[in-house]
């Protein structure tokens, strides 16, 4: 039963087109795929409408955004409000260089999970499984 559920897990992982760091994101993409998660890897977006559109078209269960240059608050805020405008209920996780003090702000905005440089790829994977099993 659990395996059947896992096969259905489908996520969108992406980053902003100006973000010059993508090793972390690619690592998460690889690890998710190795763990049986279906990943729509969208290597760059220009604005968050684009992210929401892809999420909708690809029918994913979760959006993950990577930011290592300080854009995490802005990106999260706009993404959450864009999802709301569209009436879409979709968990969002954020990873990258996220200062500790911003983690609670992000959760307050409605971000489901925050993964800083101290997180391991496996933590992200198990978080996704737990979260999407619950949904």
């Amino acid at each position, binding site marked *: 039963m659990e395996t059947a559920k896992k096969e259905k897990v489908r996520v969108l992982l992406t980053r*902003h*087109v*100006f*973000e*010059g*760091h*993508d*090793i972390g994101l*690619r*690592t998460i993409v*690889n*690890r998710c795929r190795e763990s049986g998660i279906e990943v729509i890897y969208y*290597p*760059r977006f*220009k*604005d968050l409408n684009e992210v929401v559109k892809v999420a909708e078209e690809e029918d994913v269960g979760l959006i993950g955004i990577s930011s290592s*240059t*300080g*854009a995490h*608050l*802005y*990106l999260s805020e*706009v993404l959450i409000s864009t999802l709301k405008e569209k009436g879409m209920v979709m968990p969002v996780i954020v990873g990258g*260089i996220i*200062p*500790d*003090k*911003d983690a609670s702000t992000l959760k307050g905005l409605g971000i489901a999970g925050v993964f*800083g*440089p*101290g997180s*391991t*790829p*496996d933590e992200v994977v198990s978080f996704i499984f737990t979260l999407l099993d619950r949904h």
Partner: protein
Amino acid sequence: MTDEKNLDIVRQMEDEWQKNYTEKYEKKLRVKIPESHTESGISLKPVYTPLDISDIDYSDIEMPGSYPYTRGLYPLTYQYQPWMTQQIHGYARAEETRERGEKLAREGMKGYKGAVLFVVPDLASAYGYDPDTQEARGMVGIGGTSVNSEEDIRIICDGYDLKKTRVGFSTKTTCLPILAMYVAYAERLGYEPKDLNGQSQNRRKISWLGQNTRDHPPQEQLKLQVELIKYCVEHMPRWNHTNLCGYVVGENCASPAQEMAFMLSEAIELIECGIKAGLNPDDMIPRFSAQMHMGMDFFEEICKLRAFRKMWAKTIKERFGCDKAASQQFRIHVHTGGINLTAQQPLNNITRATLQVLASVLGSTQSIHTSSYDEALSLPSEDAAITSLRVNQIILNESGAAKVCDPLGGSYYVEWLTDKLEKEAWKITGEIEKRGGFTQCMETGWLWNMLDQRIRTWRQEVDSGQRIIVGVNKYRQEEALEVPEFTVDQGVVEKMAAQRIREWKQSRNQDEVKNALKRVEAAARGYMSVDQAGHLMPVLIDAARARCTLGEMVEVFFQVYGQAYPC
């Protein structure tokens, strides 16, 4: 390097050592010492002797200041002048960036003769978007500073003697327009391009490959690199036109040998194109320099700098027939590894930086940027940036490492490894050439795949514990030490920066702007192959004189040359 009779004695000593070794570890303790190897995959023995370097001719090492410059570029290294501490910096707006630069200068950041202003543009400026555009929303003032007009440059540079100050903007896609704006700014103050001292990064292909970011297709990027070289060689003889960027390669987990091969392969191609563009190699080559990566494999990193100088000198002499010393002498700026910094136990990063700066000094670098201990958490705070300078100052003033040229020269291990690493790097350089050269290997994805494989392997090694990173997969601490995390009030900065660029745009003669941009477009369209280089930079400088913004100029390039991504 040693005569036969002495080698016989060494052989006997080695045999004796081998016996001791076997006796103690294998027979008595019954342990098998695991094999070790360098980052570049070179297998190591537990000890090195004169036998290991007996086939190396001292002419391949030579004295400091003599070809092939293994031991340093000049007869003296730091005894005459210390290495430059060139910290790239930038956040928020030009004002804040200037303030940080001044602070660092007061704390000892300096070039050889004067101030250094090495500025990182913010995310929006880095990709050529002005802060008043929709695309720049949320991206202004972070990752660097908002620099989009001559006015921003003025605020950063105002009052500095531009003949003595080393100025550089850490740019990729925007490299040509930012140089044009700087030249236009300097001209207004009465300087001529030939007076200016500093550098362009001109490393867009490496950034495109290693950071997966917006630029033109590789062949178009190559043309623009050559255009910049041609302009600088003909008009800005003191300007370092190209900063071969091993740093970004290293940040993608490349081994030292791979980094060396990337740098050399790109340089060979650029020099060949520069020759096609009508440049005399001895005019062009001395103004190549580098930003090399400094990783954690202490001895291999030292050998990397020694071996790369040698490879450069040989390539320039043997392949391009240049005998001018300045062409053969490859000047190195080191940027200590960002990838080696950990968010966990951040103060450990000071130790990492110390080892990396020491390795750079033992490798006889000309210049160092030292990453700050908080960079896995945020942009550097002022305190962290000053601590980075202190690392350099302690090594220079307290450790004694700078008293002697190439202090590890002659070490059996270091000479053996320098030689091995050089051979390894030649092998990869040859492979790139066989596959059509650097740009071709970018287009086919061969280089990208090489790095991707390294990134995957690195992760596996960290996860399995085969590669130990203190604080990450060993000696972890649950209680984290809090260090102040530096942040920028992004929304406020964005509003102010957008307002400034709007005012700047209103202050111009709009017809002049339109016409100037049209001429840029025509020149860009007319630039079909590298042999036609030399007509684009002058009209770009005209556009800067007409007060065109960075975003406006970059936009023309994207219209003409299109857009591409590595994957």
